[in-house]
């Protein structure tokens, strides 16, 4: 098992930079005109997983962005994924 100080030595600055990037992204969204959408709602909901204090935060964030249904859809009308599920109830 790695030493915690060693992990911080290796990755703190990188994580710090990414966190500031996220903050700047949210500021950017706030400054922009127009309505937000389901992607940003899912993003804000996923942030709560970071404060959980529980393990597997990455898995929980991924699940927040995932389609929660279990059945195949009738037909694929697009090829691309957008990163969040429009049908997810994030409330």
């Amino acid at each position, binding site marked *: 098992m*790695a030493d915690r100080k060693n992990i911080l030595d290796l990755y703190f600055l990188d994580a710090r930079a990414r966190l500031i990037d996220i903050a700047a992204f949210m500021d950017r969204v706030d400054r922009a005109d127009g309505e937000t959408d389901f992607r940003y709602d899912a993003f804000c909901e996923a942030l709560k997983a970071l404060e959980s204090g529980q393990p597997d935060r*990455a*898995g929980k964030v*991924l699940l927040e962005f*995932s389609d929660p249904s279990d059945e*195949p859809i009738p*037909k694929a009308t697009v090829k691309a*994924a*957008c990163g*969040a599920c429009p049908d997810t109830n994030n409330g």
Partner: protein
Amino acid sequence: MRYIEPHGHMVSRTTDDYRAMAMAGCQAVCEPAFWAGFDRSSAQGFYDYFCQLTQHEPRRASMFGLPHYTWLCINPKESEDIALAEEVLAIIPEFMESPNVLGIGEIGLNKNSRNEMTVLEKHVDLAGGNDQLILVHTPHLEDKRKGTRLILDVLKNDSRIQPERCIIDHVEEHTVKMVLDDGFWAGMTLYPETKCTANRAIDILEVYGNERIWMNSACDWGISVPLAVPQAAQEMKRRGNDAQYIDKVVYQNPIEFMSQSSRFTKPEGL
């Protein structure tokens, strides 16, 4: 360092990439059939692609001393058209006898539609009926959790399919456990934005162990890094993993899985 690239779409890469991979210690490259970035208009387009995968690309790789292996299928992104898929499935058997073909792949789902499921089942039937290894593509982003579950159910419902002969690729933190718990192999794809970063892949190894799991670059025509595997190996070293541990993940594990095909020859591993 030595490593195997178990998933690279080399038809989309330059010859310089082959050279860089060989210089970084690559010992073999394995290329699943995939979506070209546009829909092919006919089965003849796939016939030409399969010729490229079984004839031309091995020659290009051999210029740098790299053995080249491949997997055949119609990718799930083109599976909504069942009639086209059936035409393509019909021409796969004549290529399955090519000396560099390891099995059927990368099959799976994209948007988790009913037609995609039908075509997936047809591919699984083809593999099961011909004792082929299977390489599975799991869907992107929001579709991955659901698609992975559906795919595992299809594979488990066919009694001819042995989980240890299937690799479920593109796993992430929310899907790796279900894959390994069901006895399948798991692939982690190292992408700059989607799928896994090197650090997350190394985290997954720490949490779930280094058995039945590999790393790949899945380099293609999109944002991807052909040297992602050796770069991840370097990060593993930085994190304190020893040479034996790294070698198992990036070299021994791909050999263990792919040696289940008689067509795969263990590299000299210089």
